[in-house]
């Protein structure tokens, strides 16, 4: 007796049904992220005024035909500054967690699979790193090495490694004792092959979901550092420094502070929603039924 065609939905049908089941806010969030990424990457090609050109005759202007979102305290175009600021936020926001994902993910998987002394060593190192107060450490490092985009990315990336190690290790532990891993070993697969072909595909999705949440957090961290004045130095626009600069104009032109704040909020929220939805979706899949 064979499997009946009518009993199984085709793979395409299943994929489409799954996509359709995702909530509306997921799609909105994805759309926002797409817009921000597109704008940031195509910033040079867009017909925008320069974000650093000052125009002392057009300070703190409301939105107009010349400046779609108005100008800031020094007459610089807000929209351009927001888009170029997105570049910085996204660069740090994506690259730093990427460091965490690659290094932390690898260490975590090895720890969870090999166990024993190696695991203890990796976990202990991660714990030590986790014990450092992150913002203070970031401040200290950037003060010492200089606040460049690269340094910022490295230090935030390094600080993110323990979290990824933990998630990767937990996921690996959960899967390493499942029968399909035993079956692979029983077939004569090498340990490396098991890690690569059996465990990685299963650990990857939860790690990815966590990665997106980490992106959200990193954007906030970068914003905080820039707000405090120890992020990327001016005249490069950053959402955090824009908020800081907008503080003194709160009574006359509140939009100077609020526009970057709202943009940051929406971006962080979007990454959170996408990451959360991905996490929700990957978990029940792993169970039966």
């Amino acid at each position, binding site marked *: *007796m*064979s*499997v009946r*065609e009518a009993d*199984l*939905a085709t*793979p395409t049908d*299943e994929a489409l049904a799954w996509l359709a089941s995702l909530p509306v806010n997921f799609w909105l969030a994805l759309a926002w992220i797409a817009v921000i990424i597109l704008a940031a990457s195509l910033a040079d090609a867009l017909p925008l005024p320069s974000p650093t050109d000052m125009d002392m005759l057009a300070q703190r202007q409301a939105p107009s035909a010349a400046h779609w979102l108005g100008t800031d305290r020094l007459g610089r175009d807000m929209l351009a500054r927001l888009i170029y600021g997105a570049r910085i936020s996204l660069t740090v926001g994506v690259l730093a967690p990427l460091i965490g994902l690659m290094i932390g993910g690898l260490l975590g998987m090895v720890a969870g699979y090999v166990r024993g002394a190696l695991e203890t060593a990796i976990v202990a190192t991660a714990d030590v790193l986790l014990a450092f107060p992150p913002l203070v450490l970031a401040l200290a490092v950037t003060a010492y090495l200089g606040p460049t985009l690269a340094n910022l990315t490295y230090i935030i990336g390094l600080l993110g490694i323990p979290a990824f190690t933990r998630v990767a290790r937990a996921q690996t532990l959960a899967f390493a004792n*499942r*029968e*399909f891993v*035993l*079956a*692979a*070993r*029983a*077939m*004569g*697969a*090498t340990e490396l*092959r098991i890690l690569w*072909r*059996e465990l990685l*595909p*299963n650990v990857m*999705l939860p790690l990815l979901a966590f990665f997106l949440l980490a992106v959200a957090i990193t954007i906030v961290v970068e914003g905080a550092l820039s707000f405090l004045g120890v992020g990327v130095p001016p005249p490069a626009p950053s959402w955090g420094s824009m908020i800081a600069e907008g503080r003194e104009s709160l009574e006359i032109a509140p939009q100077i502070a609020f526009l970057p704040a709202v943009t940051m909020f929406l971006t962080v929220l979007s990454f959170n929603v996408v990451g959360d939805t991905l996490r929700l979706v990957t978990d029940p*899949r*792993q169970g*039966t039924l």
Partner: protein
Amino acid sequence: MRGASDRSRPVAAGNGEAAPLLRVDDLSVDYQAGGNTVYAVSGISFAIARGETLGLVGESGCGKSSLARAILRLVAVSSGRVLFDGVDLTQLGGAPLRQLRRRLQIIFQDPIASLNPRRRIDDIIAEPLLIAGVADKTQRDRRIDDVLTAVGLDPALVRARYAHAFSGGQCQRIAIARALILEPELVVCDEPVSALDVSIRAQIINLLEAMKARYGLTLLFIAHDLAVVKAVSDRVAVMYLGKLCEIAPTEALFQHPAHPYTALLLDAIPRPDPDAPIPASLAVGEPPSPLAPPSGCRFRTRCPRATRRCQEEVPLLREVAPAHLVACHVPLSSAGPEAPRPR
């Protein structure tokens, strides 16, 4: 704690001349759990002849799963030998072990957990071929199609899908296909039907019998359900708390069980017959923990026939009838007053 193994080799049913395909010699498996030692398997010896099905029966905690995994070197062996076709698996490592692994395969109890949820079915079934170095894709595809058809699945419907699309019974068929694609000689079935529905169980049992005939397999069939074991086995071994109690040809075991535990198991099984007498719950208490097995005979704490000798001396496997071995100081005799009811 671990008695010396009985050197009298259990004679394979029928042919006594051919060397057994699998021979387990005084095997012990201990593992550490939170500072304590769990004596999962203690000094077990038996042999399986080529083409035979040995059923292994026991309740939870008896160590049958640990034994299955130890035979395949999926867990560490504390002492003893596992001889597969004359080669001692416990002494092998690295590449030679991996090479040999292709000839022994295992089917697990939970069919859905035994398939990688993130890989396509044809990937899963192709994996053994890739590991074995079959480079030609058309050849691989052909073999995948052949084995899927052999287990009763339509390759066109199954290959592109993932495990979650299938029921328990279908997943078990896929797992069987994966185990058979390299045409192994020995297949260890670790409770292959316990997690399946009643109507599907019969299908899978029939399938295993058919596959055994088609591929000329030797099976070690592990289950806790005696009726299922009886349906497929040539000989049956009974395990209790890490030790082998009795091993005999199937009919002999069921008609004339010699070990009190075997008799207890047979008595406790409910029959699908409203006029059959209610199974007697003659067993006293619960199985002791494998952390601290009783001295002497491990079954003595629940045995209605226990004597002082049972507490002091570990019983060894002895032959009480042709090919029928039992490890008991006071075995049931088929001619005695406690003769079991004919079934």
